[in-house]
């Protein structure tokens, strides 16, 4: 069948997709290209132009990239981003898996536990972020009041570099484990019960069952959920911006929040989009290698 014929035969399909394609093109792909272009300019608040004033920013080549990659700030924040992502996804996964295993058995009150454990997912992120900021309040927050009641010294949660990182990570772990739990529980429930029964007949203990049935069969679901988790956490803006605003002194910033702060606190659009392009490149190449490694490991089965 010729190309033209194929296209004509599926006229209706193209018609159905047209509105979505137009919207995606104007709101996602055009801005994406424009964003990449802005990263090669010195655009800021004053030279960006408006409906009344013509734009006066100019092309600066790779200057932004050189400046960013040569700065101490970028590498500090890059390392913070890695610490943030790895720690969060590690705790999301281990807590999520642990709870999924506990919930995947006959248990009184299972439905109640499950519902209560989903609460952090159900609460709007911004509400959770404000609530935790309140819990961490240095003078009247729950944690410091509790420490005081126990006779311990208060902790400067949001104004000390390490404690602030602990605080935002705690918030985000709380926020993110239910999703992992639900997805892994779904994965566990799709493993046929007969496999466990058969292995019990063969004399396998629970540990052996976990290693040779549960883990391998859970692997596809777990790997996909982890990839999604890594991408989401890497880009997580709300929690950090609303709990610490990246402070103190950018020490809880990750690349995503720093890009935003460069754009809308400092109004340096050129630098901000440079950060954004770097984020996108990191995520795209990471996903590419992750999926390739995943394909390689699947061939074993």
């Amino acid at each position, binding site marked *: 069948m010729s190309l033209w014929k194929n296209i004509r035969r599926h006229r*209706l399909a193209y018609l159905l*997709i047209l509105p979505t394609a137009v919207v995606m093109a104007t*709101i996602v792909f055009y801005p994406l290209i424009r964003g990449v272009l802005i990263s090669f300019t010195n655009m800021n608040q004053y030279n960006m132009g408006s409906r009344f004033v013509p734009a006066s920013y100019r092309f600066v080549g790779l200057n932004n990239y050189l400046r960013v990659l040569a700065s101490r700030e970028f590498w500090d924040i890059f390392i913070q981003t890695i610490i943030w992502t790895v720690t969060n996804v590690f705790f999301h996964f281990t807590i999520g898996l642990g709870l999924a295993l506990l919930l995947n058995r006959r248990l009184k009150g299972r439905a109640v536990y499950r519902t209560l454990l989903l609460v952090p997912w159900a609460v709007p992120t911004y509400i959770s972020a404000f609530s935790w900021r309140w819990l961490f309040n240095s003078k009247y927050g729950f944690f410091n009041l509790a420490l005081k009641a126990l006779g311990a010294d208060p902790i400067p949660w949001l104004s000390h570099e390490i404690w602030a990182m602990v605080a935002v990570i705690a918030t985000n772990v709380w926020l993110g484990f239910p999703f992992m739990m639900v997805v892994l529980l779904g994965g566990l429930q799709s493993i046929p019960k007969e496999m466990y029964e058969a292995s019990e007949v063969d004399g396998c203990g629970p540990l052996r069952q976990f290693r040779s049935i549960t883990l391998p069969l859970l692997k596809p679901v777990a790997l996909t959920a982890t990839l999604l988790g890594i991408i989401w956490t890497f880009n997580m803006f709300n929690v950090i911006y609303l709990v610490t605003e990246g402070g103190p002194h950018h020490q809880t910033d990750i690349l995503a929040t720093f890009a935003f702060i460069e754009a809308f606190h400092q109004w340096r659009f050129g630098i901000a989009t440079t950060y954004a392009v770097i984020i996108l490149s990191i995520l795209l190449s990471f996903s590419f290698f992750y999926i390739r490694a995943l394909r390689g490991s699947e061939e074993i089965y």
Partner: protein
Amino acid sequence: MRRERHTWLVHLVLVICCLAAVFPIIWVLSTSFKPEPEVFSDRLNLLPDHSTLENYRHVLTMKDGVFFIWLRNSTIIALITTVISLFLSSTAAYAFSRYRFLGRRGGLYIFLIAQMFPGAILIVPLYNLMRQFGLLNSFPGLILAYATVALPFCVWMLKGFFDTIPKGLEEAALVDGLSPLGTFYRVVLPLSLPGLAVTAFFSFITAWNEFMFAFTFMSREKLYTLPVGLRQFVFQFQTDWHLMAAAAVLITIPVVIFFLQAQRYLVAGLTAGGVKG
């Protein structure tokens, strides 16, 4: 079936985890009923000594009821976003599910990759674009952005649902003289109501909870959505935690009830969309 051992230990772990999961919300709930001096006292008090509704009264009546204006803005924006995103995603998902047209695979991949874009990369050019077209501080700009952000996920999920509907039904309808679009509208859509409900729920929640776009695009207080309005209590005055707590409770309770009802279908939708490629 697995043997049940150490049941009490399992219950203990689960109870501790459940407490940790709900505690922050309980603490905010308790704060919201405390009179101001109790909120800002350095004594640990799980429950208020003298419960009061004063914080709620204050939130609901402050600045001529600005809370209701934010609530109205959030509701209008989320509802219109839902309608637009349902229309766009159902038509596109149907095409992806039923027709083997040129560019189908590529299109599906593009949707998947679009999920990866950080808001950070789109926000600057979108801000410029909206500014150029005078769409800052306007609902249409924000609605368009939200509908698009929700779109890739909705298309994938609905495609999964459409894939599970047998083709025989549509073929029968075509033989009976319905047009292809009529078949879609009269046969396929009614059969995928659960899928449509999940999609609607997802788009509504996306718009209802979004903070970054609303925060950058809306600079006039009367146009704020709830997340942006609430941020004022936390960052602008630094001392309005009692008001933040009351507002948070008002916003959260309906959302949580709604979510816990709908999450079963959301998870079903995730798996339906994910399993079928």
